[in-house]
Every structure is written in structure tokens, then in C-alpha cells.
């Protein structure tokens, strides 16, 4: 072959490889889009499903062999396997927080399918709902392929994890799973909560650490993983006629009261926001008032499922840092009246769809009720 055509051949081959790679990457991008979309779908359905009635915090035993409800985005096989997980938890007297953790773990490991050996592409000899490995002492392949056995093994290890009821879901799950992706379980918490609520009539709204399914209240953490930031009276509601741009609720509490993270998440902002009405910067270490603007010392936390919470008017610099992972109920700062505040309170906002702007804000009262962490106490 003469030199010219050979060079042309090289150029053509390179182009062909480049195009193939580009197509591969593009396809990967689109697949990525679909998996993002799938993850977000859980959020959308959870905000459009029929709200649970007040006082619905779980009832009776779940029978996997009986009539099971349909759950949007899940097949009947997946719902059946979730019912087995809840049923085994009930039989073993594991409190409801454990059911949510187990369902979320199985969503990550197997998408709630009882997976057989999938070949080399799978995690080696991992099997079943929780992808347990015979070679690591979880049981024989036949045992692990029995969902009741696999679930029992999961709970046996979970309840031995110190403080598992109050650890962030992904931390509790990782202590059992020992996977190469310790933070992967967190994102399934909203869907796992929805599944447990649907199967049991609201058990994820019960206090997470109690077997007797009591509607959660006070500063306890619900099985959903949510708790109130501050126990206090609501002194101003969400977007009232008098305050149409009030994008949160004001929870009154004495100066210096600890403000708690409402759920596990990552701190995405810590800072001071205070100005005079004319826009001049003002200190957050001094009390504000109606002649000032802004949220004062505040914290913003990103939770699973695109939920964002914000906590304003702290008395001093918050005690968490950007990027820090926090657990539900962990203190993040103290009540004060920095910025636009006429008395000590925590201005608490809830946003959906990962949108921290006013457009993403929702009324925290019904949202927190659904999570089993009702804000505001009767005056």
C-alpha cells in the first residue's frame, strides 16, 4: 500500500473510533438523564399521593400473601418484596425506623428484586434483595435467595449497630452492608418512607425507635427520619394574607434554644445575611429588627429527594460548616433574632425539587405533618 492511502486509512479509523466513543458518551449521558429522572420521580409521586389522614401512624400486620396496594413507579414484584421486608420487621419486633432503612437498602442493592447470580458484571457472588455474599458468611446461596432469610439476616445485623435508630439512614445501612458506596442509601429514604407508609397506613410517621407505633411528636425522630427543628409555637404562618412573601414558618422559642437539623443531609450554606433597609451590610452578631433585612445567621441543608431546609435568625455563628453531613436532630445553631426579626424565633423553610429560591418553597406545616414531625405546639 502506498503512503497516501495508508494515512487516509489511519485518519478514517481514528474518526470512526472518535465517533463511536462520542456516541457512547452521549448515550451514557442520556442514560444518566434517565436515572436522574427516575430518582426524582420518587419525589414527585410522594408529593402528589393522597395525604395520610391525621392520626394514621401504622395499623395491623402486613401480609405479603394478601392483597397489596399498588405503588406508583413500582411493579407488583417490588411491592411484594417490600411487604416481606416490613412483615419480617414486624414479626421480629424491629421498630419502624428499621423497616424504612431495610427497604431503602434493598432499593439500592437490588431495586427490590430478588436478584439471582448475574454473572461477572454483578458484585461477584452477591445475591438476593440485599446482595449478600455466601463467601462472606451471609448464608448458602439457597438461603440468601429466600427473601425472608435475607431480610432476617439484615435486621439481625442492623439492630446490633450502636445507635442505629438515630444514625443517618445511609450510615446505619453501610454499617451492615460494608459496600464500596457508603453514601448511596440516603437517596432512597423518601421512596422507602412512601412504601412503608402505603403498606402500613402511615408507620413511617410513628416515632422511629418505638415498636408500638405511636404518632410521633415533640422532639422525637419519626421513622421517616424527620424531626422538628425547634419545639415552639408558630407565630407566623406560610404566605399569609398579611405576609404574602413569608416563605416559611416562624417558630418562637427562647433565645439560645438549640435548633436541630430536621432530617439527615449535607449542609450547603452557612452564613450571615443582614442589611439595613438601604442595603448597607449589618452585623448578624447584633439583634436585628424591622429596620433590617435578611435571614441573619442561617443554615441551609440539602436532604434526599431534592428537599432543602433553611433555618434563619440564629443568635451567633451556626455550629456546622458547609459540606458537613448532619443527622436528624443534630444541633446546628441557636435561636436568636439576627436580621429581620422582631423577637427570638427560628424562621424555618422547606423547599422541593432542589430549588432554594422562593419558587421552590412549600408550606412546612402539611409537609412536616406528612413526615410525622408536626411543627408548632398549641398555644
Amino acid at each position, binding site marked *: 500500500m502506498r503512503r497516501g492511502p495508508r494515512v487516509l486509512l489511519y485518519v478514517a479509523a481514528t474518526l470512526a473510533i472518535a465517533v463511536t466513543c462520542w456516541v457512547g*458518551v452521549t448515550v*451514557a*449521558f442520556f442514560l*444518566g*438523564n434517565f*436515572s*436522574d*429522572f427516575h*430518582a*426524582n*420521580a420518587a419525589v*414527585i*409521586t410522594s408529593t*402528589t399521593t393522597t395525604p395520610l389522614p391525621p392520626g394514621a401512624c401504622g395499623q395491623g400486620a402486613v401480609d405479603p400473601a394478601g392483597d397489596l396496594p399498588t405503588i406508583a413507579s413500582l411493579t407488583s414484584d417490588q411491592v411484594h418484596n417490600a411487604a416481606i421486608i416490613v412483615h419480617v420487621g414486624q414479626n421480629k419486633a424491629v421498630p419502624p425506623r428499621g423497616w424504612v432503612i431495610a427497604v431503602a437498602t434493598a432499593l*439500592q442493592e437490588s*431495586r427490590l428484586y430478588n436478584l439471582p447470580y448475574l454473572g461477572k458484571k454483578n*458484585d461477584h457472588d*452477591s445475591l438476593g434483595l440485599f446482595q449478600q*455474599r455466601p463467601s*462472606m458468611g451471609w448464608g448458602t446461596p439457597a438461603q440468601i435467595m429466600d427473601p425472608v432469610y435475607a431480610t432476617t439476616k439484615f435486621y439481625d445485623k442492623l439492630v446490633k449497630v450502636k445507635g442505629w435508630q438515630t444514625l443517618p439512614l445511609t*450510615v446505619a445501612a*453501610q454499617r451492615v*452492608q*460494608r*459496600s*464500596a*458506596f*457508603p*453514601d*448511596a442509601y440516603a*437517596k432512597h429514604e423518601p421512596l422507602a418512607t412512601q412504601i412503608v407508609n402505603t403498606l402500613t397506613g402511615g408507620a413511617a410517621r410513628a416515632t422511629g425507635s418505638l415498636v408500638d407505633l405511636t404518632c410521633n411528636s415533640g422532639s422525637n425522630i419519626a421513622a421517616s427520619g424527620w424531626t422538628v427543628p425547634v419545639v415552639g409555637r408558630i407565630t407566623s404562618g406560610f404566605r399569609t394574607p398579611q*405576609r404574602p*412573601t*413569608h*416563605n*416559611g414558618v*416562624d417558630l418562637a422559642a427562647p433565645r439560645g434554644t438549640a435548633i436541630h437539623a430536621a432530617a439527615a443531609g*449535607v449542609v*450547603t*450554606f452557612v452564613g450571615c*445575611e443582614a442589611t439595613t433597609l438601604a442595603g448597607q451590610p449589618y452585623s448578624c452578631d447584633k439583634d436585628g429588627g424591622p429596620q433590617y*433585612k*435578611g*435571614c441573619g445567621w442561617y443554615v*441551609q441543608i440539602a436532604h434526599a429527594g431534592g428537599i432543602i431546609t*433553611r433555618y*434563619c435568625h440564629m443568635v451567633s455563628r451556626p455550629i456546622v*460548616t*458547609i*459540606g458537613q*453531613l448532619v443527622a436528624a436532630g443534630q444541633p446546628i445553631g441557636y435561636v436568636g433574632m439576627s*436580621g429581620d426579626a422582631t423577637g427570638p424565633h427560628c*424562621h424555618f*423553610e422547606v423547599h422541593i*425539587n*432542589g430549588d*432554594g*429560591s*422562593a419558587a421552590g*418553597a412549600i408550606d412546612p406545616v402539611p409537609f412536616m405533618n406528612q413526615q410525622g414531625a408536626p411543627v408548632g405546639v398549641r398555644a
Partner: protein
Amino acid sequence: MRTLLRKLGPRYGISLGVLVLVALVLVVARFVGHPAGSLVTSGATGGVPSATGPSDDGSVAVPSPVGPVTSPGAATPQKVADDFVTAWLRTNVSATAWRAALTAHSTTRLAGELADADPQTVPATRVTGPFAFTDHTASWVEVAIPMDSGTLRLSLLAHDGVWAVDTVDWSPS
């Protein structure tokens, strides 16, 4: 379309509308998103509050976005993420050696979470596309890495300008 929606009923119709909107936003966000490598100079605001306009006593201003800060002589977040991924995928070594290689690029917190981790649970074998840096502040970076069987998502934290991986998330494809 209208008769279809009417058949579906208002609740499902609205759900469908919201889903379509979300899909659109995701696709648009992907296309206008920050290409890999634009991290140092770009100013994404996704990680910080973006409320604008009057908002009563809530947040009113947009804090100025800051790019990730790396101490002179320390590895950039891109380099730390790259080294971590290489170590994460190298599972043909002992569990102890695999964990030690990861811990070298991890925060203390993540090292604790990986203390008993089993390298045989690594569900991928190779990187299939560019690293996508999705969000950041001066001391916090998120990156998505497409792999042959899913997407690995890391977050990195800087302590005094020295970067380390703090979280590891996996979404199978």
C-alpha cells in the same frame, strides 16, 4: 391532549405535567450544565441560596459564588477525584490495600465508613466518559463520573485548601 388529560383525571394530569416539566428541566440543565474542566473559573450557584427579590424575613440576597480554593502545592479537586476513582476501581488487590489506597484521598469521616468495606462490592470496571463537576463552593465540590454499569458521585471537601473525598454514592444504570 386535552381529552387524554381529562380521561386521566386532574390529579394524574397535573402529575404528568409536572413530570414532563421535570424531564425538560433535567435535559436543559444537562445541556447548559458546566462542562468538565470549567470548574476553576466557573461560578455555579446551585449549592448556595439563590432567593431573589422580596422574601419577608427569609433569605433575600444571592451570596457571591466562589470557586473551589486549593492551597498552593496541594492537589486540585479534579486530581484528588481522579486518584480516588483509580483506587476505587483497582479491586484486584487485598481488601486492606484497596482501603488504604482510598483512605489516602478520603476525609476522616469517609475513611471510617470504608473501614470494613469490601472491594468485591465495587459494581463497575471502568470510566466511560468525562468527569462532570456539578456543584461547588470554595470548600465543597460534587462530581459525577459515568462508568460502564452506572454513575459514581463523589463530594469533596477542602480543609485549609487541601481536598479529600467525603461521600461516595452509586447509581446503577
